[in-house]
């Protein structure tokens, strides 16, 4: 399902049927296929242990693929040692050389390329200015704050002008505010330098805000590879639906199915409308996924002719810009509805019974067995 999406893209980085096993018993990466055009910002997102770092390490050349091919610029790189791949890398712990100053750290990649002193100094200065750290060249890494180290690591990965930059959770150690700031800076550098970036994170908001495309990893496979909005709006399976953003899940069975319309009977007997995604047969078990912000409770917003269900208010939480309401729906106690804090918005009281509904395309009927 992922190949079709990018079959025609002129690829810069390509994984072809890559598999990886560390111990010869289990596959950590199972059949990875991925094509990336030049200049793309691609994020690998997934839970811990899903094989993201492993993929990055194979690309950088620190791990060898057990099977399959990795191509860079249409050249297979399986047998090229890491130092000849010309790939910049930012490590999660920054890996700044502790015995060198910031300036020496940055000039290291230029030095090993045999660049002259004056040219080196010029490039180091420009790289430091680029991350607004111009006055820190003489410091040691130990004398820098986390965010400053992060910038130096970034500058070092970029100073030798690599075609491809890999970042393995580079912002993992920073606090929220700094992280958001650095996200913006990285994105800005990506755009102004036109580099290709493979970015690893398990922070989904980071993935959604920064990336051109996001590859959602689970269990050694790409579950979905799509731009952020598509990922959020149209998750392809239950894992993606559950992993990206908040989600309500209702169990049921397909009652009727047409091209783009399915009628689902819930466990408690109610009927709802949904868009079929990867369900095909009448009688099939399904999970209907609905985003909390797409649930409506005011009859004037209901779709014409759509089914409504009865819901009981369990909890009403004031969150400033939104209200968050926990409902009991069709026997599920954890159904969440979010609505904007608008003028004249009335508070819902616990125990109150309200009808709820949603637009058919916001309720996605997914195959149940791929659920998490």
């Amino acid at each position: 399902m992922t190949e079709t999406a990018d079959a025609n893209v002129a690829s810069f980085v390509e994984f072809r049927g890559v598999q990886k096993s560390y111990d010869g018993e289990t596959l950590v990466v199972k059949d990875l296929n991925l094509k990336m055009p030049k200049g793309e910002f691609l994020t690998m997102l997934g839970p811990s242990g899903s094989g993201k770092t492993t993929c990055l390490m194979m690309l950088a050349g620190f791990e060898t693929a057990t099977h399959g091919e990795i191509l860079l610029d249409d050249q297979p790189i399986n047998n090229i040692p890491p130092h000849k791949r010309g790939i910049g890398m930012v490590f999660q712990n920054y890996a700044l050389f502790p015995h060198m100053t910031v300036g020496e750290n940055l000039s290291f990649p230029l030095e090993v390329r045999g660049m002259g002193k004056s040219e080196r100094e010029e490039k180091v200065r420009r790289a430091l200015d680029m991350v607004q750290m111009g006055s820190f060249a003489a410091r040691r890494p130990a004398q820098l704050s986390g965010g400053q180290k992060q910038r130096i690591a970034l500058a070092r990965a970029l100073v030798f002008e690599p075609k491809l930059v890999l970042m393995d959770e580079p912002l993992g150690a920073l606090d929220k505010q700094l992280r958001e700031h650095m996200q913006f800076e990285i994105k800005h550098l990506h755009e102004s330098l036109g580099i290709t970036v493979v970015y690893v994170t398990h922070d989904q908001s980071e993935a959604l805000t920064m990336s051109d495309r996001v590859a959602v990893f689970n269990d050694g496979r790409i579950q979905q590879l799509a731009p952020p909005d598509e990922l959020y709006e149209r998750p392809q399976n239950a894992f993606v639906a559950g992993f990206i953003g908040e989600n309500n899940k209702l169990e049921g069975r397909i009652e009727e199915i047409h091209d783009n319309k399915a009628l689902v009977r819930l466990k408690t007997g109610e009927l709802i409308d949904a868009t079929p995604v990867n369900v095909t047969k009448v009688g099939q078990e399904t999970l209907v996924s609905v985003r909390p912000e797409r649930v409506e409770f005011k009859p004037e917003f209901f779709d014409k002719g759509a089914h409504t269900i009865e819901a009981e208010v369990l909890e009403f939480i004031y969150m400033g810009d939104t209200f968050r309401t926990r409902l009991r729906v069709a026997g599920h106690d954890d159904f969440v509805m979010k609505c904007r804090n608008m003028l004249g918005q009335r508070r819902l009281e616990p125990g109150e019974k309200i009808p709820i509904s949603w637009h058919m395309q916001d309720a996605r009927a997914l195959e149940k067995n791929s659920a998490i």
Partner: protein
Amino acid sequence: MSDASHDSVQSGPLTTADGKPLKAALASAQAHRTRRAFYLVAPLLFFVVITFLMPIGQLLTKSVNNPAFYSWQDRDTGEKIPLMVDLRAWFDAHPAGTGPDEAAYAALVTGLVHAKEVKAQGQIGTRINYEVSGSRSLFTKTARKADKLEPPYKEAVLDVDKDWDDPKLWNSMRNASKAFTIDFYLSALDRTRDDSGNIIKADEERAVYILLFERTLVMSALITFITFLLGFPIAHLLATLPLRHSNLLMIFVLLPFWTSLLVRTTSWIVLLQSQGVVNDIWVSVGLISDENRLQMIYNQAGTIIAMTHILLPFMVLPLYSVMRPIDPSYVRAARSLGATSWTAFRRIYMPQTIPGIGAGGLLVFILAVGYYITPALVGGSTGQLISNLIAFHMQNSLNWSLAAALASLLLFAVLLLYWLYDRLIGIDNLKLG
């Protein structure tokens, strides 16, 4: 923030809530903690003073002060009795180089008579014997007859033994009667004094100490270097191998610690002697012929091989403790930045292990410089180190002052090394584990 504290910021020194000056409050709070810390370490401090600092002080004193010629401690009462009082007065009155006159001989005889009364003649003779061999018997013989001698004393004494007019002997007595002397250091550096007290080189056959110091330093440096060459890869392997393999390797590294030093050294004898295992194997595979068996023990080679083996863990452990926490991502980062694996090792990995190299090197070198048992057992005559000579003077020649002088020279050399290390690498970079 309240107004009161805001005011105090502006008006002079800070105070605590109850009005005490902040600095004094802090000092008293810290003094309490310092005191408690002191009580905790007091037993150890006491132990160290008794067993370490005092002996070292005594050693240093002994090396410049040997009172055997002019002071006698009574075995029963513990009382100190001065000896050779008149002779010392004569030496004080006459400058070095003056030949002994009648008064000097008279003082000598008085001194010997008194020495015989308190049975100190042997001690005096031994003391002079350090520098002029044969003096011990000379002193005991003359002291036996001293109370029967009549003036003129010069002739009477020379009648007993003609050796008494040897200027060396008188020089030696003059030196021995001084409270402080650097003569033991001179001896330790192969120097001696001529008849008029000038410092000159010692005779060829007595000049062994500088050679031994040199040999000790060179061999220790060599052993340190070999342990480094052998230990660095092992430590690296230990630090990077998965835990269950590295544990096994660690046991092999530590094995030498768990067997007695004597056993290890003697097993080297079994292995290396000319009819030993190693030679046998070489002969049987035809590497050397039966007549040309290699002499690998009872010489320098034996000392170097055995000591390298014994000191290897002291190199491996500090290196290991420095290498273990080095994140593999440093080398990976260097590789991704374009460095070959050799460059990454040399520029990134190696420099981070310097504290371990320094610590291991210093430790092995200092231990090697003072090593005694192994060279004594497997060193033969060419593999002896300075510590063997110190032991010889402690146990055989009983010249404790010379032993002390040699030992303190060794101590100074090590301190110098330590100081150099501090200047070059910085002692706070030292990592032992």
